[in-house]
């Protein structure tokens, strides 16, 4: 909750100039669910769960790494 409110305050200040990078940046951060997938895959017992968990990690990692790199590329273009 606290995080949500703080996040709200911080994001309100971002100018619309940077909304796309902001979105793709927070989008990358939403790959944070990788933390959950790591833990549940590691402790999964059945094979099918492990497989699902494995896919979850892969997806989250694509989200995370792809998102940050794309944002980085975009931000580098903003020059004065």
């Amino acid at each position, binding site marked *: 909750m*606290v*995080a*949500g409110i703080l*996040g709200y305050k*911080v*994001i*309100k*200040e*971002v100018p*619309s*100039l*940077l*909304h*796309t*990078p*902001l*979105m*793709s*940046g*927070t*989008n990358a*951060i*939403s*790959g*944070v*669910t*990788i*933390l*959950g*997938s*790591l*833990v*549940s895959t*590691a*402790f*999964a017992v059945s094979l099918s*769960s492990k497989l699902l*968990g*494995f896919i979850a*990690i*892969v997806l*989250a*990692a*694509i*989200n*995370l*790494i*792809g*998102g*940050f*790199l*794309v944002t*980085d590329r*975009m*931000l*580098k*273009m*903003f*020059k*004065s």
Partner: protein
Amino acid sequence: MIGTYEVISVVLSALVLLGIKLMSSPKTAVLGNRIGAIAMFAAIIVVLIYNGIIDMPLLWIAILLGGVIGYAIAKRVKMIEMPQMVALLNGLGGGASALVALVEIYEKYPYMTTFSRITSQLALAVGAITLSGSLVAAAKLARKISQKPIILKKHNQISNSILLAVAVFIILALFSNAANSGTFSIVTALLSLTYGVFFAIRVGGADMPITISLLNSLSGLAGAICGFTIGDPLLVAVGAIVGASGLILTQIMCSAMNRSLVDILKGSQLNNSAQAKKSEGKITAVKRNEESPEHKKTPAQLLKEAKKVIIVPGYGMAIAQAQSYVKELYDLLESQGKEVKFAIHPVAGRMPGHMNVLLAEVDVPYEKLCEMDAINPEFAETDVVLVVGACDVINPAANTAEGTPIYGMPVLEVDKAKSVIVCNLDTKPGYSGVDNSLYELPHVHLLLGDASETLKKLIKSIEQEEVTLSSKNNI
């Protein structure tokens, strides 16, 4: 109890917040993004160590595999494809949350508290909706499926019943044994996926920015709920940040269009009144610019003589890939000592800030990109406004035509400028379906056709204009 892990979680969440804060200025944004990335990778390592699973090869293989794929697509994607890229990545995040929830349900259901059971089901549903909704949105943006809203008969009833069914199955799963709950969860997941499709398929082109930011918010929400299930404070905190950010963007977009979120999700208001308007607004935009000498000048002459020029880009610029010509023209006008600015409407394009990214790609300095409220007072003192592929966001009908979908939507007041040059493909109404009354005004010049071609010609004729002028001077 507050242990080391909780402290680390707070620190890392704070880092993520700091990263986002730094993204509020172009100068520090690159750093901000990297801080966010580093915080995330630190979080992964901490979680691996804390749970004693850092030496499991399976996990590393998965991370590497995802990392390589992510790296490959991030390097290859073109800026023009950015909206669908963001939508796609977003969907993957939602999908991952849904899968985690599913694994948790399969593995631990008998030992879960009621709270975890509820959250795991919710994470499953929200994650699945995010996944399918984002994929549909990405396909629409990539023009793999029609950008027009696709509305089935009784769309509302169907999607509401699906949502209701999701709720029923969640409740069923809560009160059943492990084996059944697994089955019910699968049904919940499938229904949620269907709901996501229904939800996204009826959103059309210009409402996409709102849908994307809403889906972005949902993917954060799914992560946060997932965090509750697993009991991971870091996941909860960061998920909440993302959820909040998506929500704010959604809110900003909605107010920029003067429409409520519900209207957009329903897609209904737009279509009904758009049709009504089409029949009544059939005043053709042919008879114009014959009166005063100002109006007889060619667009090139106007631009040549102008002191202050404002360029208004829209989604048409993106389709025509005309941003490099816009930049060329901008350079030309600047080199002639004119004041040139860009006016960016908050919902121009297909995602929040879309135009800014495209213009930044072609090296337009970001100080020249002005937000609507800042630039609107300046139109009155502007000699020439050059519109490139924008329609609804400059339509003065938004202020006057009551009952149309865009009525009350704040627009760029380009009609106040001395002359307006419109480089649009045609005079057809924009996405909203409302005829643009701007086209009928006497001081508006229409250069119809592909914006890239039009701009090329325009640049050439300005250059020729310069030659003729200087040769005259020489004589």
